[in-house]
């Protein structure tokens, strides 16, 4: 098991390296291939009206006249060993892991990622709890009462949840539950958990529910389909024939088997979400990683885009690893290392 985990971690590191290469290439190699010279690339990091002096200074600072491989090496070595930046009056030490330095905002990327993680984490964890509990429960009930009014109503709601985009449900919920009936605070109202847990939860109810509505709908449909399949399996019939109570048959045998694909998808969804729930964060103006990434892409702020991408990739790798380990626990049919 330990060896398996190490193998997966090593693969994860290789994956992260590939991610850096791809993102770096998008920002530095692709423009060059499209004929953009180093002056043009340098001008990205300067204000509205870049002077030749400023362009020359940025080129020197970012090694833009060096071969792309040298530039990439500088970036990766900075990531691992840290880097130093001149603020004019001081040297800023960007300790490893140095995810770079945003020349747009003149700030280090890593502290900003850490600063935004609690926002995205709060959003993702809260929403995940809601969508897992709601989605799986509704899915199981629908499967057990197939064709009933409850099943139809639940699946209709699920269809709505899957079909309606987050920015729509988000804006409507804000309009109704924040502006018309001021039950919840307006967008941009994030309070840190450590500051005031109640205000934290109060401010996140709408984003949680909005995000969970979409995912719960998907999970309800998935769970329903999985349960319908599983409940028709031979081992369920055997369990019933052995005289096990229906509750045990459903939860211990049926649900456990049906949960396997749910866990796989949940791992990916949750990992990705920790990298930023872009639409929800943007709709509710939550200062999380997703909004951070979107703003960075808009502003061509490479170090930030790279930072968020790497961060997201780390979460996806870890989430996948956890999922693989959970498999064995949830479904005895799966054998690790097989």
């Amino acid at each position, binding site marked *: 098991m330990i060896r398996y985990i190490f193998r997966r971690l090593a693969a994860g590191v290789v994956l992260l390296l590939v991610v850096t290469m791809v993102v770096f290439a998008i920002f530095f190699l692709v423009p060059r291939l499209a004929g953009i010279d180093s002056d043009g690339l340098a001008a990205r990091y300067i204000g509205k009206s870049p*002077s030749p002096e400023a362009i020359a200074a940025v080129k020197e600072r970012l090694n833009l006249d060096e071969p792309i491989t040298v530039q990439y090496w500088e970036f990766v070595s900075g990531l691992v060993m840290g880097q130093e930046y001149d603020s004019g009056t001081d040297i800023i030490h960007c300790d490893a892991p140095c995810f770079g330095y945003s020349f747009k905002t003149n700030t280090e990327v890593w502290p900003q990622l850490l600063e935004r993680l609690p926002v995205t984490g709060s959003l993702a964890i809260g929403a995940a709890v809601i969508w897992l509990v709601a989605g799986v429960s509704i899915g199981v009930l629908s499967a057990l009462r197939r064709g009933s009014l409850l099943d139809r109503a639940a699946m209709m709601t699920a269809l709505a949840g899957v079909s309606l985009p987050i920015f729509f449900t988000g804006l409507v919920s804000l309009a109704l539950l924040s*502006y018309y009936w001021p039950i919840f605070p307006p*967008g941009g109202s994030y309070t840190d958990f450590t500051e005031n847990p109640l205000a934290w939860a109060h401010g996140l109810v709408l984003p949680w529910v909005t995000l969970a509505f979409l995912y719960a709908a998907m999970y309800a449909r998935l769970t329903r389909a999985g349960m319908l399949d599983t409940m028709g399996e031979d081992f369920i019939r055997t369990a019933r024939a052995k005289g096990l109570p229906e509750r045990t048959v459903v939860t211990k045998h049926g649900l456990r088997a049906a949960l396997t694909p749910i866990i796989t998808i949940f791992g990916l969804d949750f990992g990705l979400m920790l990298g930023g729930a872009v639409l929800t964060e943007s709709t509710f103006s939550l200062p999380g990683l997703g909004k951070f990434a979107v703003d960075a892409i808009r502003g061509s702020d490479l170090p930030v885009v790279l930072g968020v991408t790497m961060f997201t990739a780390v979460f996806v790798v870890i989430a996948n690893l956890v999922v693989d380990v959970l498999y064995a626990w949830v479904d005895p049919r799966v054998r690790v290392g097989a």
Partner: protein
Amino acid sequence: MRKKWLGLAAAGTSVAMLLSACGGGGGNGEGGGDYSVDNSAISSIVDQSKEQGGTLKLAHSDQFDSLDPGNTYYAANWDFTRLYARTLVTYPQKPGDKGQEPIPDLATDLGEVSDDGLTWTYTLKKGLKFQDGSKITSEDVKYAIARSNFAPEVLNKGPNYFFQLLDAGDYKGPYKDDNLDNFTGVTTPDDRTIKFHLKKPFAEFDYLAAMPQTSPVPADADTGTQYQTNVVSTGPYKFESEWTPGQTLTLVRNEHYDPSTDPLTRNRPDKIQVQWKQEENDRDKRLINGDLHVDVAGLGVEASARQDILRNEDLRANADNPQTGFLLYFAINPNVEPFDKKACREAVLYGADKTAMQGAWGGTIAGDIATNMLPPSIKGYKPIDPYGTKGQKGSKKKVEAALKECGMPDGFSTNISYRSDRDKEKKTAEALQQALQQYGIKTDLKGYPAGTYTSEQAGSPEFVHREELGIIAYGWGADWPSGYGFLSQIMHGDSIKPAGNSNLSELDDPEVNKLLDESVQTEDPAARAEIYAEVNQLAMESATFLPYLNQKALLYRPEELSNVYFSEAYKMYDYSALGLEQ
């Protein structure tokens, strides 16, 4: 209760907008209706009050380039920094034209120019203090100019007019040369006198002295790129604590600010808060709802809120629709064939349907059709229209004549570039494409990201020539409210740069260059205005500019705000004047 219903109406309309995915229509107003808004704050100060107190809440859909007054280049920020960074010169708190005439702020008077026009002298008022109570001296102003203009390796976001104009030899800036005496472009004979030594006369120097770069910076508090996190205040407010970019900025009263030294009243609220990166539609709703007081970017509300405001009489009563001073145009590049021939350029000018382009932006509420390259608010503006057509819809007869003269009677092919993430600009390019198509002028649309448009594509002459971008969508606003401030960067030959170029027409007309150079050596403002009129005429005659819209913004002022007026200097509400009704 009324607000509740307004909120519901706003919400309902927004939902309807989303459902119908309805963009700006043509006609007289957004959505086709003929609406007019109150517009009181354009010509008067709305809700004048002497009341102090409260927290002024501002929000930005993005964030400023920097809060460092020496490292910023956006009008909204220049307007906003006046709350904590006073400058040698500023603009009066008056609506209309009077609001764009410079007045002394930290200085006792406007600049005194020497007979040869090469030295501008300012004297600091007595009793000026930084937020820690220490005295502001002329050396602090000199240091501010040195760091903001002569250290592009550290601070490169702001303009560098002082670098271009000051006779400073090969001074390397304060971060490479810590002896400020070596900076000979500015001298300080005593604690209160500042002399700017110019390479050539520049009659509009007072406008430069109104830029935030002249706000004093104590050398020992300067932290280079990090100074924006803790700017040492010279104004009525100071940073509550060290600011982290992206986090809410809170300004509190600066106890060492002496209002008796200030020509403006800019200390009404007790506290000022700015939230960054706020979703635009949500920001607008909060504005209408009263949860926010100002959209600090000052660009106006988005399409959804526009509908809400225009269709609701109560909301219209709190809205203004001023011209932003921003001119939207297409540059026609004479270095891309067949536009090396003037008649081919003229064919495009005569073929354009400006009403369709106006419609693409949202109708008359989004702007007035422009017929030349000077915005009406700038002195020297004349309503000339050298390529006017009936109803501004294009003229078949004139296009055909131009095409014939151009030697391509059946038309030609070219490319139109635009910023792909700016939907209205794309629609405008499509409108031009459709208009030209009927005359046989075939165009391919080429979209590029706004983030790199000026640095790498449209702003790179080499890229423009190689990709044959004959027609380039662009927009421009003045760095200061004068003809030179508006025209020099987009039509002086010296402003053509290999990257980050704004002179997209690559106009390098000796006569235009000469006139622009002459203008800033001419002391009489009326004579300067005449020169700008002449430059404008020549630029239009060059047929390298297709101006189509003097942009307008729909601004909303919540009822809680007092002392609201539209500043012609910054082209948005004057943030320094705002107060709150208690």
